[in-house]
């Protein structure tokens, strides 16, 4: 059943409304657990739209397999999503720097506080992000070190390619995940794909992973068949490749492929001169899990990230 979580008046003939779909299984109450799936904090990240769709569709198809509650929040920044704005439009602020919010604060601090309050009491929360418009990512769970020990036991069932601990972007204390984890609601951050796009196969992979996790928690009765277990990594094993000049980046490899030391990753060209300004070469062997999609680069722009020193955890 679609419910309104929070509503607050905008200036002209409209309320800002946060909605969720509460899915209650017919498979008995079992352990009575509640899992929340949230997405759309960043309005330019749409991969979670497909994950939400898959979750709702499949649970509606087989409600007898669910013995608990799944709450799906498809758009935490509804105005941002509508205009493909990563930030909160008008305020130009990153919503994922506003948690836990303030119920007596400004409009969006109240929105943030209402979301946190609504999620409190969940047994698990999964916050689905996509990459931005600039780089493409493989499906991964990002954990901050503070909570990693507890979260890794959930994250490994998520059918993602990789778990990255202490990735700088998720370390931030004002994120939804940090606020929820601090309150004792285990919260996983999923990253995948590309901004402003939906990659259906990634979406299905992650949805499958969420069902697998629901199964592990004892609230979904059917174990998904083909689950893979992720590579675990920390910042030390991730090699960042950045542009050291400005120009147009043309990749020479495919995303999510292995490279060897010395392999060409791409080049930065200058169209007006018709020449190659820089050749970008891998300094280590590994998996290119991040690759630049948006061609214009300035000095410092992220071109690729390589996961080195890969230890696959097989035979689970």
């Amino acid at each position: 059943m679609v419910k309104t979580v929070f509503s607050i008046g905008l200036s002209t003939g409209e309320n800002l409304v946060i909605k969720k779909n509460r899915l209650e299984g017919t498979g008995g109450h079992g352990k009575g657990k509640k899992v929340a799936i949230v997405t759309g904090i960043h309005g330019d990240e749409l991969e979670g739209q497909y994950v939400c769709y898959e979750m709702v569709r499949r649970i509606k198809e087989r409600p007898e397999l669910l013995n608990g509650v799944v709450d799906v929040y498809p758009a935490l920044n509804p105005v941002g999503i509508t205009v493909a704005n990563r930030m909160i439009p008008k305020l130009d602020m990153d919503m994922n720097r506003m948690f836990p919010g303030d119920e007596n604060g400004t409009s969006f601090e109240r929105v943030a506080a209402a979301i946190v309050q609504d999620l409190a009491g969940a047994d698990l929360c999964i916050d689905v992000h996509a990459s931005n418009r600039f780089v493409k990512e493989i499906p991964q769970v990002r954990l901050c070190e503070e909570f990693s020990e507890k979260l890794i036991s959930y994250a490994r069932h998520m059918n993602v390619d990789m778990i990255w601990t202490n990735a700088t972007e998720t370390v931030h204390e004002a994120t939804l995940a940090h606020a929820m984890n601090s309150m004792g609601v285990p919260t996983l951050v999923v990253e995948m794909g590309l901004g402003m796009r939906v990659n259906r196969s990634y979406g299905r992979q992650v949805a499958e992973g969420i069902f697998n996790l629901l199964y592990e928690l004892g609230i979904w009765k059917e174990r998904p068949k083909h689950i893979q277990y992720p590579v675990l990594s920390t910042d030390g094993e991730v090699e960042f490749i950045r542009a050291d000049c400005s120009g147009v980046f043309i990749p020479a490899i495919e995303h999510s492929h292995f490279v060897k030391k010395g392999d060409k990753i791409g080049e930065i060209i200058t169209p007006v001169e018709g020449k190659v300004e820089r050749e970008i070469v891998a300094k280590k062997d590994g998996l290119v899990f991040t690759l630049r999609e948006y061609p214009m680069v300035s000095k410092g722009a992220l071109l690729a990230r390589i996961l080195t020193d890969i230890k696959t955890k097989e035979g689970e």
Partner: protein
Amino acid sequence: MFAEDIYTLSTPYREDMSVKGYHFGKGEQSACIIGPMRGKGVQQMYICSQLVKTLKELESNGCICSGREVMVIPVVNSYSMNIGTNFFGVEGEDINSQFPGRTYGDTAEQIAAAVFNRIKDYSFGIQLTAFHMTGESVPHIRMVENGYQNSSLANLFGLPFVVVKKAKPIDTKTLNYNWQSMQTAAFSLYTDSNEKVSVKSAKQALAAILRFLTRMGIIRYESHSGYISHVLKEKDLTAVHTMCGGIFRRKAKVGQDIRYGDAMAEIIDPYRGNTKETILAPTDGIVFFAHSESLIAEGDLAYYLVHRLHE
């Protein structure tokens, strides 16, 4: 005066962006004044430009104290100035949340690192800045409380208010916070304007900076004594939020004295024209900050008041 290129960024289709520092006097790195990192901070850039002009005159009259050196960086993010955006580059990064920066990080982190490395050894740091929310405030000095802040030095600007703000996690990446962590006495100066030049408050800000530099023995300049600053904590400001959204018609102005129950603003129904809400002053006080746009949403901050204590 001599000009220095602190950081230069090349891009394929625009001229280089160069962050320029203007130096006055010779000797110990005494004071650094830095302008906007957001592209809409025209007022702050204007104040810096006036400061460069004044310091150049003072220098040619021998009024920079011997052994003292001052640097002014009028603008950091000139690329965004020219395209009317606040944030830097295609990624839209806020340079003022990248400090201390990383030499091998993203473009915005590299800019922050280059600027920070150049300015971190100054004894006094003054940053001209503005609120993130759109609105006007009484001119004041703001500093983040992180154990190093010195609010009694902030009084020497002679502005009406000094506000001490408790550091939130997000503040740890600002210039002010990082300057203080490097033992620079850092002050953020706010005026009542941002995107538009307000000549009157720019003059007040310029006078405050010159007064401070004089009192610290860095320049010789005749200035009147200014205000005796009222030091307050940000949490002690009274926030006045709206109960509904609509067209915001402001009555109370920044700096105005108001009494409990005064009508400070009206919110007009944007379709029917009737008054949906009259915002009444919840306390006696002075208007410290006022929302300045014509539209407002439910829950938005209309005003901050400084609660007045009765003698």
